[in-house]
């Protein structure tokens, strides 16, 4: 008994030092002014036009990114499920391979490809096609997000689909369901846990990102992540930064709760 408790001590210390204390600090800064008195202005600052616009933009882009990832990843996972495992694993590895490279590097690479005078423009000019750089547009940011976060959608979907009992699917078709009916009534509901964790793993990092919007948005598009980052690094206002972080956290927790309710419905029935 005691031995087991001892074993958990390092993790407990780790959690307190790197999760609990930082959270408490953010809570403290978020609710205080520079001179240390209590305020809720750092929280209500989200209603200022610039901040709420950034938050809405973030929500919009990360939702779009999640939907695109889901639409790209689900068919892929479905195709790979029907291949034999060796082949499927290889294709999955190709999709995951970029993750072995640094996140910043990958995003810089996109900047180099897409920018004015970039590789794509040069290739286009070779065949005399006019090229309009998409750097600084929503499209560029979506591209960067999808590229970076797609593996997080593919993996859980691939897992849940390959673990599905083949005979359960056969049983549906045995009972007269065609491929479409089998997909809607059996495969889709049974893959819900994978969909939920995929959405979580894509939506959260894309909602909070500031690197992608920084580089591919060419500082023209401000996301909530950029605003928070600038409060800390440029404006040196950790109080406002913390307050906005808390607001963002509430949005994340709310969306988690919403998604998990779906998951509970799925899982409660499924397992």
């Amino acid at each position: 008994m005691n031995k087991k408790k001892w074993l958990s001590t390092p993790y407990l210390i780790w959690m307190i030092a790197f999760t609990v204390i930082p959270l408490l600090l953010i809570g403290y800064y978020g609710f205080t002014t520079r001179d240390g008195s209590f305020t809720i202005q750092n929280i209500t600052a989200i209603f200022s036009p610039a901040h709420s616009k950034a938050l809405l933009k973030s929500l919009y882009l990360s939702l779009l990114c999640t939907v695109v990832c889901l639409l790209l990843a689900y068919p892929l996972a479905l195709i790979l499920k029907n291949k034999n495992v060796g082949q499927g694993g290889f294709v999955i590895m190709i999709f995951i391979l970029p993750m072995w490279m640094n996140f910043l590097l990958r995003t810089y690479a996109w900047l180099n490809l897409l920018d004015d005078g970039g590789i794509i423009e040069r290739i286009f000019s070779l065949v005399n096609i006019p090229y309009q750089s998409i750097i600084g547009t929503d499209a560029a940011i979506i591209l960067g997000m999808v590229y970076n976060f797609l593996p997080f959608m593919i993996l859980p979907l691939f897992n849940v689909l390959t673990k599905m009992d083949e005979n359960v699917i056969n049983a549906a078709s045995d009972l007269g369901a065609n491929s479409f009916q089998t997909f809607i009534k059996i495969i889709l509901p049974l893959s819900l846990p994978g969909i939920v964790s995929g959405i979580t793993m894509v939506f959260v990092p894309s909602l909070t990102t500031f690197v992608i919007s920084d580089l591919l948005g060419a500082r023209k598009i401000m996301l909530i992540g950029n605003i928070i980052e600038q409060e800390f690094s440029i404006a040196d206002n950790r109080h406002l930064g913390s307050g906005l972080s808390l607001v963002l956290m509430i949005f994340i927790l709310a969306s988690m709760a919403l998604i998990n309710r779906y998951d509970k419905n799925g899982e409660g029935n499924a397992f």
Partner: protein
Amino acid sequence: MGIGETMKTPLIDLVNISKSYDGQLIIDDLNLSIRENEFVTLLGPSGCGKTTTLRMIGGFEHPDTGKIIFDGQDITSLPAYKRQLNTVFQKYALFPHMTISENIAFGLKIKGKSKTYINDKIKYALNLVNLKGYENRMPDRLSGGQQQRIAIARAIVNEPKVLLLDEPLGALDLKLRQDMQYELIRLKNELGITFIYVTHDQEEALTMSDTIVVMNQGYIQQMGSPETIYNEPENAFVADFIGESNIIGGTMLEDKLVEICGTKFACVDTGFGKNKPVDVVIRPEDVELKPEDTNPLKGVVTHLIFKGVHYEMEVQAGGFEWLVHSTQMFPIGTKVSIYVDPFNIQIMNKPESEDEEAVGIDE
């Protein structure tokens, strides 16, 4: 042999079916006819092609060559969901996200049956498999045996002409398995539908089947009633696979006379020719031990085990270890002689090559 002709028209006809995976031949030119209302068991060791055969009938696999005729129609390329038969899968394969009644209703809903019809059917099916009151439970709340019965209920509400069962009792414990065997026989008689059953358990096959199809290495070894398969195995594989047996090399001296272990035995088989090498099958319960001086083949009891219903003994005689089942006990070391009733001696052609050992049956 000749089973196809002597009965009425078959419901299912497999014609020259072949199937291979990764260049390995699983089913080799298989021909099989199944009549209406028959309980047919495909029996064989794992890898013999029995499950593949069943899955081809169900539509989950497609033969490389050959035809599957169902009720007079060629269904070879028909997808599973269009076939008028239902399958009970090895590990039940219930839909885990649906209640028991949703599981049972699945096929009927797809076919667009009315709500009252579906509810009546659910009631009827649950009654049939003795699981009344389980409508709203989830599959994982049921034991293996109960899940199995729901899988059967889910299949039979669709009123299939044929029910395919893929080792449905494999995951159950012995007692439950025996109960389910009686349950299946009862269902078959009540519903009057054709059962095609796959198993590697010879006892299960003998208990339930009207016809047993013994398979090995993608070939049908023998097909017949349980009695025929047990009493008159056509080759050493069948004899060995169905129950215990003494398989002894011998010589057919002339009609009705065979020599085994240097001793002449009277038998009832004819037509093998003279001085022909043959395999002789004698079931352990057919070997009769007599006092030493009453029969020409003499031996000594070397092993003795009490098995409940009978004693199991081994007798060293004529250079062969005879397996003997008898209610009479002979202690180890007893000198005995061996007598076998001519009717209990089964003569089989000796295979001349591996290939011939696995001959298919010609219709």
